[in-house]
């Protein structure tokens, strides 16, 4: 089942002096449960593509359909709500809320969706257990290592059971051991929860784990390789 369809997607940035075609006619489909990496050199359009898929930016041309819903047809307030219910985000620099504990960070999105207290607590414990941080539920981000913070960010991204998770360079700030642990956790969650993961990355270790690798160059797809 297709969770994401991208049709003839273009993004052009017009500054006063130059015109940048960051995404140039991309067509892509993602099935449920995919574990895909988007790779390419800096400036190839990876982050722009992820921002467009996540509804953080608007395409100049083309369509993005999430479970058949065309993001371009949604108002900006509707897109925010759509993101809340359908898309999980993992950022390069974790971006946890520093004043909340690990548990509260995970719970935050469920709170925005007005889940009841009991369900929130159960899901938070379940996810923190899945990322191996159940005992750090009351720790603030400042008391966690970078790897642990990113694991909390993954748990947060999965909290509301989204259609897919977009991860922008999730391992860029992690050492090799933390990267290994994080990838194993994400892979197992991907298999257990059947949630699609789409990464943008430079990291060869992420590429190695991915079951589909899409290579971009100058905003165009250079290759789209699926592995078993």
């Amino acid at each position: 089942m297709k969770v994401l369809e991208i049709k003839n997607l273009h993004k052009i940035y017009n500054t006063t002096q130059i015109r940048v075609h960051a995404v140039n006619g991309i067509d892509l489909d993602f099935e449920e449960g995919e574990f895909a990496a988007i790779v390419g050199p800096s400036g190839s359009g990876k982050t722009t593509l992820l921002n467009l898929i996540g509804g953080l930016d608007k395409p100049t041309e083309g369509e993005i359909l999430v479970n058949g819903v065309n993001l371009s047809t949604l108002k900006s307030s509707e897109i925010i709500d759509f993101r809340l219910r359908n898309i999980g985000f993992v950022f390069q620099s974790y971006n946890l809320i520093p004043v909340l504990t690990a548990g509260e960070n995970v719970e935050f999105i469920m709170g925005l969706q007005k889940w009841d207290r009991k369900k929130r607590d159960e899901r938070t414990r379940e996810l923190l257990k899945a990322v191996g941080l159940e005992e750090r539920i009351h720790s603030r981000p400042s008391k966690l290592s970078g790897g642990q913070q990113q694991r909390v960010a993954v748990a947060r991204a999965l909290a509301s059971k989204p259609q897919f998770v977009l991860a922008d360079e999730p391992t860029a700030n992690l050492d090799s051991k933390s990267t290994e642990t994080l990838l194993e956790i994400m892979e197992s969650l991907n298999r257990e929860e059947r949630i699609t993961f789409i990464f943008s990355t430079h990291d060869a270790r992420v590429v190695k784990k991915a079951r589909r690798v899409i290579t971009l160059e100058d905003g165009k797809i250079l290759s789209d390789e699926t592995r078993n």
Partner: protein
Amino acid sequence: MIWKTAWKNVWRNKVRSLVVIISVTIGIFGGVFAVAVMNGAIQQRVDAALNEEISHIHINNPSFRDNYDIRLFLPDADSIEALCRQIPGIEAVTQRVILTGMANSARKSTGVQIVGIDPDREKQVFGLHRRTMEGTGDFFETESRYNLAFIGHALAKDLNIVRYLIDQSTIDRLKDRGLPEETAEKLIPFIGFRFSGEKDFNNEMKQCLSLNEQTSYGRLIKEEAWTFRERSRMTLTFLDANQMQTGAVFRIAGIYDVKNNAFESGQVFVRNEDLRRLTGLTGHQVHQMVIRIADLDRTDEISGLLSQKLPGLEVMNWKEIQPDLAMMTGLVQQFYLVFMIIILAALAFGIVNTMLMVVLERTRELGMLAAIGMNKKRVFSMIMLESVFLSLVGGVVGMIFSRILILMTARNGINFSNYEEGFEAMGYSSHIYPVISTGFFIMVTILIILTGILSAVYPALKALKLDPAEALRTE
């Protein structure tokens, strides 16, 4: 979740938040306490006016107040009184004979209003008898075959009925009450001196005492040096029922002190029987009916009812008799509101600045929150709540501190005795008991919340304008 996050965000930068909170605390503390002092002074003034000077409702012959002519009586005063007593809510009624005349002592004379009263009934309407100065007598309680007058402290000073005398016993008493030896020695040259006026005494004290000594002990020295010659006398002259000049010597029954120089100088109370005998008025001839009501909130209702039932007579309630009192009680509430708004408006600039810093520092985080699905309404609410929490914490602490200080000072009052003359000239007591209503605290709390909300509007709008993708790229 938003509330919890906003509350925790307040304490993210403790020093910065504490600076704002402390400034709000100081502003609210100062503002509320200042209002409590002003309110205390005004309330004391209004209470004194209603309990000791005018009471609640007056009934006069309609022309009487124009010229205070002795012949302008209330027609059939007893029937009027009987009618008044039938109206529910009227607590007590007293009848007065009122004349204008001159009060004369051996040294001075001054114009006064001579009020003939029945002391027992007067006590039911007024509390003036409770303001008799210690050692000066009483409120017509001691039987006497002489004419008696109950006069104000200011009039007693004007007529030189009170004096200031320093002798060895005065100095000994002052030492017992804590006057330092060094200051006491400065008073020794004045032993045996008798000052007939307060002004002369003050001038001498100013010359021999330092400013600090005057400030610290001036009132104490004046209290101990103050003397009243028992059985002092004065002459009251006035027109009788036949418009003939008459007068008599009156002994001072007692001296009252209501901390209102104008009232004390102008009102001399005498017994109705003495005045009737001297003027030739009969027992049914009175000029004024004074009414005390049980509930001040029913003033307009009862005075309106009396006006209907007594056509052709002048019925005036306290708001009409002294419009300045009515203005004070009404206008002053608006003044307090404006006063607190000015303080909070000044504090709001600090809060706006802090909240702008908050938005600027958290650009990336706000971008992340928008990305993960926090809508604009929630972002706006979170920033609003942070601002409200900041101002409310400071405000509540300020109100608690001010409440504590009000309670501490309300018991014994605050003594502004150095400015006593000025206060009393305006009719205010220099000893103020701060007081504030619970309603005022509720109003201030609402104002604080509004300040927090208004202070956050601009920073919150800035946060809403952030582009999430761009904000996430911020370092």
